């Protein structure tokens, strides 16, 4: 799973985003999103938008929807902590769709203890915020899980998060 070569699941996630007609991909990068992001950056029909903070992406997705486009926001689990008011006060208050692809930290062999509290808080926070959780642990389920989450979200079924397991990405090595 922790392959140094290019795994298939990021490509499958990108394929699902294309199938969902997502046209704006906003991100604060995480290592786990690298392969998917490179594809987005290379695709001319998609706007890949670098953010300074994840909450900009929540608002950007709302603006995109107002203008008739679908967006996705890519972030690491700590980034969700930067988005709480944006999700409550914009996404939920106005019932905007919001599709987030969140790479998990702090849950599987995490070498940085500073990541653990937010990683642990993530699922209950999302739940409290009324965001549907879709966990991705099996790389073979990448396309189906994201496609299902996005379909429900853009059909008006409420905000959705795909939680990409740290087990899938591989824990980051901290070595001197």
């Amino acid at each position, binding site marked *: 799973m922790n392959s140094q070569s290019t795994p298939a699941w990021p490509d499958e996630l990108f394929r699902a985003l294309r199938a969902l007609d997502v046209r*704006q991909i906003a991100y604060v990068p995480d290592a786990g999103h690298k392969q998917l992001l490179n594809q987005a950056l290379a695709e001319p029909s998609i706007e890949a938008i*670098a*953010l300074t903070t994840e909450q900009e992406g929540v608002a950007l997705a709302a*603006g995109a929807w107002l*203008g008739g486009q679908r967006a996705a926001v890519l972030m690491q689990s700590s980034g969700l902590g930067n988005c709480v008011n944006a999700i409550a006060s*914009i996404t939920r208050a106005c019932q905007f769709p919001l599709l987030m692809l969140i790479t998990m930290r702090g849950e599987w062999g995490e070498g940085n203890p500073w990541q653990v509290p937010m990683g642990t808080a993530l699922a209950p926070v999302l739940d409290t915020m009324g965001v549907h959780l879709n966990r991705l642990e099996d790389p073979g389920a990448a396309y189906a899980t994201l496609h299902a989450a996005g379909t429900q979200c853009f*059909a*008006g079924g409420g905000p959705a998060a795909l939680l990409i397991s740290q087990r899938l990405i591989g824990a980051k090595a901290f070595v001197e």
Partner: protein
Amino acid sequence: MSGPLERRAVVAELLRERGDLLLVTGLGGTTWDAAAVADHDNNFYLWGGMGLAVATGLGLALAQPQRQVLVITGDGEMLMGMGSLATVANRGPTNLAIAVIDNERYGETGEQLTHTAGTTDLAAIALANGISDSREITDFDGVTTYRERLHAGGDSCFAAIKVQAGNPTMVLPPRDGIMVKYRFRAALGLGGV
């Protein structure tokens, strides 16, 4: 010392003969200012999400490249979302303009001074982020010129418009964001979901 201009007159001038301009307003004062001019199907008013007006406008501008988008927001709101100026400048939309109604105060919460009353210069910040047409406006002619600039389109532009302190009467637009969202999309010919 706050500026000489009257905020309602400034916003009325920016929105004069607005054509098919799309408008996003920041929570608080600028939402009331826009409503005082006239409620409009092409207005999306934020009643929350402080710091996020410019990012909302960017998503809209990218989705509607044929339409001009204007974000009108407060200095306090802009200070909370300063990073979004970097995001806008680096993305470089050609249909997004920003106007900050800068009273140097958090008017909505009791007129506490913001950093623009002190050392902070929002137009210089926008410029340093890469929005090359960034200006501070202190007279009405400057507002009229900026109105022409933002309707003309082209590279993103930014103005910090110095206005008097003091809150005019509150004029409330619809507070149901779900309704305003549907209304905004319908005016663009977009469907319900």
